[in-house]
């Protein structure tokens, strides 16, 4: 065992603090003039979607870096990030549906944004499934990084779908050429606070998840080392007294 994996505690503290601040901001900000308290769903929905983009982009970077350097470090980063991305894509979809039912009137509709988000969700679930097709770390990293690169096409596709095509989903409120479409400073603070808090959550989860991947890989290595024959078939154990 060359290196001991360090178990860090600060990520849990960082997650707790940042979520507490974001929650407070989202609760003290005023209700929307049209949709009332439903607007508060946005303070988690938008940061979740942002985290999904960020996470899948890091998966893309990790995959490209793996294919160039062939260093498993990068594959671990790509894998950890994809798991977080899938979780937050799911959260964004679930919260979006919770908001859509009382606002639009339906839980789901097949407009471009929703459809492409659903496809992105399933492609990255496929990425995680692909990682389970083998225990061989090098083989696994090779397969996954190809999909990690291809899948990233979807990030701009999902984000700009509301601008490129006419959708039921509204276009972005925060990042717009002519400034945020949110006038109330407290609403803006709640949204930006959520985005910052979720980014901190992402970094913290990444640190913990990569720790765990190190431990998992070490366990797999140790187990396969035990099962492996000592020197192949050329050496056989001595037998005492042939059976009749």
């Amino acid at each position: 065992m060359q290196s001991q994996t360090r178990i860090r505690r600060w990520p849990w503290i960082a997650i707790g603090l940042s979520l507490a601040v974001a929650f407070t901001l989202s609760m003290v900000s005023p209700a929307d003039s049209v949709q009332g308290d439903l607007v508060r769903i946005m303070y988690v929905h938008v940061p979740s979607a942002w985290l999904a983009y960020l996470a899948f982009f890091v998966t893309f970077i990790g995959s490209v870096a793996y294919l160039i350097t062939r260093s498993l470090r990068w594959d671990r980063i790509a894998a950890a990030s994809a798991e977080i991305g899938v979780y937050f894509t799911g959260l964004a979809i679930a919260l979006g549906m919770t908001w859509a039912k009382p606002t639009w009137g339906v839980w789901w509709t097949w407009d471009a944004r929703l459809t492409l988000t659903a496809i992105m969700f399933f492609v990255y679930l496929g990425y995680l499934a692909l990682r389970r097709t083998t225990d061989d770390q090098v083989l696994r990293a090779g397969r996954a990084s190809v999909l990690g690169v291809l899948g990233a096409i979807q990030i701009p596709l999902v984000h700009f779908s509301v601008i490129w095509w006419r959708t039921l989903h509204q276009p972005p409120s925060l990042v717009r050429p002519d400034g945020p479409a949110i006038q109330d400073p407290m609403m803006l603070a709640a949204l930006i606070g959520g985005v910052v808090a979720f980014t901190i959550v992402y970094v913290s989860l990444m640190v913990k998840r990569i720790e765990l991947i190190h431990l998992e890989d070490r366990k797999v290595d140790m187990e396969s080392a035990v099962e492996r024959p000592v020197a192949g078939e050329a050496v056989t154990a001595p037998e005492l007294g042939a059976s009749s």
Partner: protein
Amino acid sequence: MKRYWKFIIPAGIVVVVLVVMVTGLNANLVYFNTPTELGQQQAGDARLRLGGQVVPGTVIDTETGVAFDVTDGREAVSVVHTGAPQQLFQEGIGVVVEGTWDGNEFHSDSMLVKHDENYTSDDGEYDPNHPYGDESDQS
């Protein structure tokens, strides 16, 4: 043989995604027609979606639902909607209605409220007693 899986699996997924996008999404890439586009559509039994802003002052309760005009800022189309309007339905809000176009009126039986990207807290609270909004609110 084993090496090929690295490419076959992701390539297969990409193909499936492309097929779904081209076949399933193509018709939905444009989610609704604007009132201007509807004028160029043939009247008939084809199911269409129409989207736009509810023109203030045109909302009338009918026996079977609600009637109102929808505009994209250039053209306006009369919509006769059967069924209860959505919770957030009001004057000035975006709606997407689904139904048929007879060349004169749009007969809708399905309504979605399209929320825009603007969020405000200061121009009046939502009032359940005046669900279609107060006309004096709209400028």
